[in-house]
């Protein structure tokens, strides 16, 4: 299609030049927002209407609705018998641009499975949550579908290990795991 050009020009007339007209118009907009929101807040507080007067979310109590495609934290999926799906093929480690995944492969104790990861680390602070690992996985073993926005609670030293990444399936809070792990390493 042809290139259409439009010249923009805004000239101020006397109404604009005396400040007060446009200032009051602007004030009217913000005032209207205040009044409407206040009304909604009151209705919400009185439990008359469910919607509230603000577009923000009060984070810890109230979570933003997240689309199901959300790329959150990693987890390792398990088979029906509870064993991990991962076979340490290193696809995720290979494609990871941040080198945040480290896998130590080994011979599986299960005779039906040849190879499995003896250790599976995800350095969550290196991770950029690009989702390439889930895309690369040939076995649907790693996913980024844990909807849990916070990753660092009170520390910046977070490396998830295999048990934790699998343990997410039974909803164990990560702090618990972290405290266990931390005391572990202290003793050693």
């Amino acid at each position, binding site marked *: 299609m042809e290139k259409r050009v439009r010249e923009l020009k805004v000239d101020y007339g006397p109404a604009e030049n005396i400040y007060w007209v446009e200032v009051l118009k602007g004030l009217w907009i913000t005032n209207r927002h205040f009044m409407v929101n206040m009304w909604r807040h009151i209705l919400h507080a009185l439990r008359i209407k469910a919607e509230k007067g603000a577009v923000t979310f009060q984070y810890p109590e109230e979570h933003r609705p997240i689309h199901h495609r959300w790329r959150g934290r990693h987890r390792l999926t398990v088979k029906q018998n509870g064993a991990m799906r991962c076979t340490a093929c290193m696809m995720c480690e290979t494609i990871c641009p941040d080198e945040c995944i480290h896998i130590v492969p080994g*011979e599986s104790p299960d005779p039906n499975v040849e190879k499995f990861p003896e250790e599976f680390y995800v350095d969550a602070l290196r991770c950029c949550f690009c989702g390439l690992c889930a895309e690369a996985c040939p076995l649907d073993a790693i996913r980024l579908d844990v909807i849990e926005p916070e990753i660092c609670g009170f520390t910046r030293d977070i490396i998830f290990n295999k048990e934790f990444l699998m343990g997410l399936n039974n909803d164990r809070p990560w702090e618990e795991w972290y405290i266990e792990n931390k005391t572990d390493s202290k003793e050693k």
Partner: protein
Amino acid sequence: MPKIKINGNEHEFPEGMNVLEACKNVGIYVPHFCYHPLLRTVGSCRMCKVEVSQNMRGSMQSRIDISCKVEVADGMEIRTDTPEVKKQQQMTLEFLLSNHPLDCPVCDDAGECELQNFYFEFGQHDSRMIEPKIKNRKAFDIGRSIVLDNERCVLCSRCSRFLEEVTHTHELGIFGMGSAESIMLKPGARLDNDYAGNVVDLCPVGALTDKDYRFKRRVWYLKSTPSICEHCARGCNVRVDWDLNPYHWHKKTFQMRKHRTEATDLQRIQRIKPRRNDAVNKEWICDTGRYGYKSTDSADRLTQPVINESGELKPVEAGAVIKAFVTGLNSAIKSNPGKVAVVVSPKLTNEEIYAAWSLFRKRLELPNLDHKLPVDPEWTGDDLLKSADPFPNRLGCEWIGFVPDGNGLGVEDLNLAISNGKIDTLLTILADPREFLEEKSLSKLKRKFFILRNLPEDLKEHVDAALPAAAWGEYRGTFTNFEGRIQRLEAAFDPEGEAQPVWHWMIELATGMKKSLKWRKTEDIMHSLSDHVINYKNLSYDSIGPEGVVVGDKA
């Protein structure tokens, strides 16, 4: 010499060459599984199909044929790019893949697997297989170092041909018919010969895998450096496959956390693979060379200069050890240069030997220099590759002249000389003194200096001062093999800790003794070496090609 046309272009090839090789020579790669240039041609995989047009009974007739079995003939026309050829290759590949298990995630061969490469390059078909795949034996232990997986096998028979034609040991064979056909051990046999590891290299897919490398690292992580095996005088051409990544992870990121501390994780060399050199080792290496890399990162590796302080070895800075070396040697030489013995191992490269020779013979004029370490009685050579001499550079030592002076003492005289008190100072380079000295003469020595790669626990009591030497894979240089062939080895990675190549320590030592050796890198030493030693005349790193050069009176 027959002239043939390949994809329209005319070329000339020697008589008897097959079409596959001919295509390879002009840069057209024909996919193949079973064909191997060093083995008998069987034509079992049917992958290398090309269109062959030949004058038969007066008219050009074209057919699709396997290129490995067709010899070039005058007037032949080959096409590798017709749709029919493509289709045939694709269909062959589809057949081969129809029963192939979904094993790429666990297969060690993924990344250098010909099935993968050919699928990507020649196949690219969609799967049509809906029947269940045939199950077969998996992860079957067939020998000291080999694991067999029959499901992945494409029955190319390279392995059994190798065992028949090269080693003549006949451990593997093909049994069964139809879909039950599979590679198996012959009854009562186990794949335990000295060259068993080669079947892994030969296997184009992941059916035969190496226990030593099993699940260790993925192939595509490895970086390769060409090198020369140091385990016998043959000087087989090898490739060092190494990866520093897990090493760094464990050293840096995970040292604070619980992690496996097994030595395998900290190994930098992951595996050794042969390089093709028809003049030396064709494409085979023995298992001694293949699995002999582990001392580079073994637990007893000496990574820091150590000095004996009141009966205890303490890691110190290199300067302190050099100083100890210098004062010890100087005082011994001042009293009598004949009281000092220097023994080097013929594992040193030509450059290192020359550096040591320049210091001890040319500058210090010591009479008692020798390299003739006794050969381990357990070592036996064979007529395929393994030489009777387990040292890679004995000829180089002789040529450079690291031998006793006219009336100097050799290694075999040392025991007697020490007990007589004729010798009280010993410097050995890369050699364990207990190989040639008795325990009592070792303890009788006044000064004992060592330059070592590995310091075993039970040698520590005898050490006065020791410098760490770079291990195999950490330095570059040249070896002279038993037939006078000079070959280059390259450094794969930096030396561990404070270790340095021997020539570097020689230069430091010379500086400490005020005898200047002015070299900066191995090229400089090679330069002086070619100037001063007759056999190495006009030699430089560039003139040593990938196959090496034979020099001296052997040429």
